[in-house]
């Protein structure tokens, strides 16, 4: 969660070129806490919360995802294909490189 403000800031930085979507992996019973958290971080627009069995949720995003959180996927702006993905927290440089590649691919 430490990286959340940075990830959120990317949507402003890249404006029309990037859309950041958060998907909560918390349990549905915690939906209110999730909403409160998103509000406290000034996240507006659509966000999602898990509503299916975990293995289905994991494989639905990516077959190679082991289930380790956080998990990030970056899609190409033009083709929609996956440009990069990773588990766990990464340096800001990794985000920037993937996003630049996504915008230009």
């Amino acid at each position, binding site marked *: 969660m430490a990286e959340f403000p940075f990830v959120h800031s990317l949507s402003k930085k890249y404006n029309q070129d990037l859309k950041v979507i958060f998907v909560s992996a918390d349990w549905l019973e915690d939906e209110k806490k999730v909403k409160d958290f998103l509000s406290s971080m000034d996240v507006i627009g659509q966000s999602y919360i898990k509503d299916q069995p975990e293995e289905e949720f994991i494989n639905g995003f990516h077959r190679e995802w*082991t289930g380790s*959180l956080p998990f*990030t996927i970056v899609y190409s702006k033009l083709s929609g294909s996956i440009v990069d993905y990773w588990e766990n927290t990464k340096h800001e440089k990794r*985000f920037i490189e993937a996003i630049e590649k996504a915008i230009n691919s």
Partner: protein
Amino acid sequence: MKKLIFVATLLLCVGIQAKELDLGSVLPLQDVKMMDITGKKVSLGDAKGENGLLVIFSCNTCPWVIKWEDRYVELAKKYQSKGVGMIAVNSNETNFGSVDSMDEMKAHAKENGYNFYYAMDYGAKLAREFGATKTPHVYLFDAEDQLVYRGAIDDNAKNKKKVKKPYVADAIDAMLAGSTIKYASTKALGCGIKFKD
């Protein structure tokens, strides 16, 4: 405070770092000594029983660990007496100075009635060698030290009364009976292990 965990999906617009140990692999790093909450050093070789070993990568604060750890205790109670050793390993090396310190591990184990080894994996050597990525992340080895199951405790972290597939218990039962393990590799969500880069 309850933790909230997000998958961040950047839509506009490769890779998982460690490869998980393959089924059939031999128990690695059996002789590496780790500090246990008892104050004594323990290795996987010390922890294994005559019929196998259950290794759980775990920690003190992950919401999935908190939900599942009552089942750690039940598994230990049921299977250690049947010759299956059990050890929980904490590999969150960036947290060893804070929430995953040895003092915190001792307190957490006491509070939750741990009845098995709970050891600190300095340098996260075991986690790297196993390709463990999260907590909890479970590996079961048979009497010949071969990996026969890896993945989740069961299919419902939140509510043990609603578990339909008790993966680990079924795998141990099948292993002890010499029969085929129906689900030998499973997935569940968990908190990323806190590796130093």
